[in-house]
């Protein structure tokens, strides 16, 4: 049975097909949620809420491939997380002049594994983390981020700048610790 057939069955309300889709997507979706919401329990709860919305809106879905399905479900999860963050008021509004303009090395993230990037990102404050996730990982521009979060584009830029500088520091710290460990060995 293909993914398209499972989608068709899930649309009809087949519990088995819904379970199959959950098994396929839940692990990755949980990591998406955890990237935005640090708390594991909150992230899991948001993922379940996102799956509820996914199943309820499944009737309007036109299957266009596995990647499209994944990005659609991921978008639902991200929206759930952003709504949660908005409710919690965890965004840190940093004005532009305060923001440091420490540039992150372009290829530094490429050299890191997904797990390492993940561990770095979840250490960022909520505001920085959200903008960094949306801009660097999801590929949105500042206009879209500003509209999505209800902030100005300048604030989005400053948040990203802050996030990059903080990551730079963290990477340096890690390298120092890594170097120390290497020299101790």
């Amino acid at each position: 049975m293909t993914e398209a057939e499972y989608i068709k069955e899930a649309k009809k309300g087949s519990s088995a097909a819904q379970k199959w889709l959950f098994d396929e997507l839940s692990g990755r979706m949980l990591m998406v949620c955890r990237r935005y919401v640090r708390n594991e329990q909150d992230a899991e709860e948001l993922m379940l809420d996102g799956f509820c919305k996914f199943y309820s809106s499944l009737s309007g879905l036109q299957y266009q491939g596995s990647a499209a399905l994944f990005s659609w479900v991921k978008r639902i999860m991200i929206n759930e997380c952003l709504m949660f963050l908005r409710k919690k008021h965890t965004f840190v509004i940093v004005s532009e002049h305060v923001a440091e303009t420490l540039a992150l090395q372009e290829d530094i993230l490429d050299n890191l594994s997904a797990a390492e990037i993940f561990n770095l990102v979840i250490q960022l404050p909520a505001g920085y983390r959200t903008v960094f996730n949306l801009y660097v990982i999801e590929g949105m521009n500042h206009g879209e981020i500003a509209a999505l979060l209800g902030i100005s584009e300048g604030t989005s830029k400053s948040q990203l700048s802050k996030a990059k500088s903080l990551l730079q520091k963290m990477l340096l710290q890690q390298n120092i610790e890594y170097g120390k460990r290497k020299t101790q060995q």
Partner: protein
Amino acid sequence: MENEKRSNSLMDKMDGLSGLPGDAAFNREAAWNRLQPRLPEQRASRKMVWWWAAAVILILCISPFLLKDRSRAVMPAPALVNSTTLPKPAPVITPDTIAQEKPVPVILAKAKQVSKMTDAVVIPPSDTLAITQPLVAAVPRQDSPLIQSTAATIPPKKRVVHINEVGGDVIGNTYIYPEHKQFKVAISGPAGFASQIVADKPSNTSNLPKN
């Protein structure tokens, strides 16, 4: 452009992440068990159950009133005597009222048409005819002469007495009183028949003539 490519590669890298090496494996079954009650179909079925329950309760609440109304519909309504709603008595028709009554106009709508078709019919000068005496006058009243004439012809009631109570005899068409029995036999009845009658009389009656 380079930034976008990097972003896409980073996105793919991060999207492929389904768990961290050091973390405990995500328990999908437990998460599914938590999710299943929240699914839309489950909610719909639960909603349906609640709707059914509400409908049953509503029917149970309404049914006594419905049954009450039905029993009322079957049973006849009690007779209510209301003086105001009683029908008016029929008007008493007297000769005075008849005289006062206006003549009933009878419209002969097709009179002209009929007259055109048949020449023998005499056309009245006007389209209306007046009936001066209504048919109600034919009903006899107490003071009418018809009643009086019938009262005169009815004979007065007489007491009906059996012949044995009187004690007389009938000879032919003639009634013979007991005291005149012998006399009448002697005058008008045939001798044989009269003697037989006399002989049939009881012994307490004397055969001797009174006069």
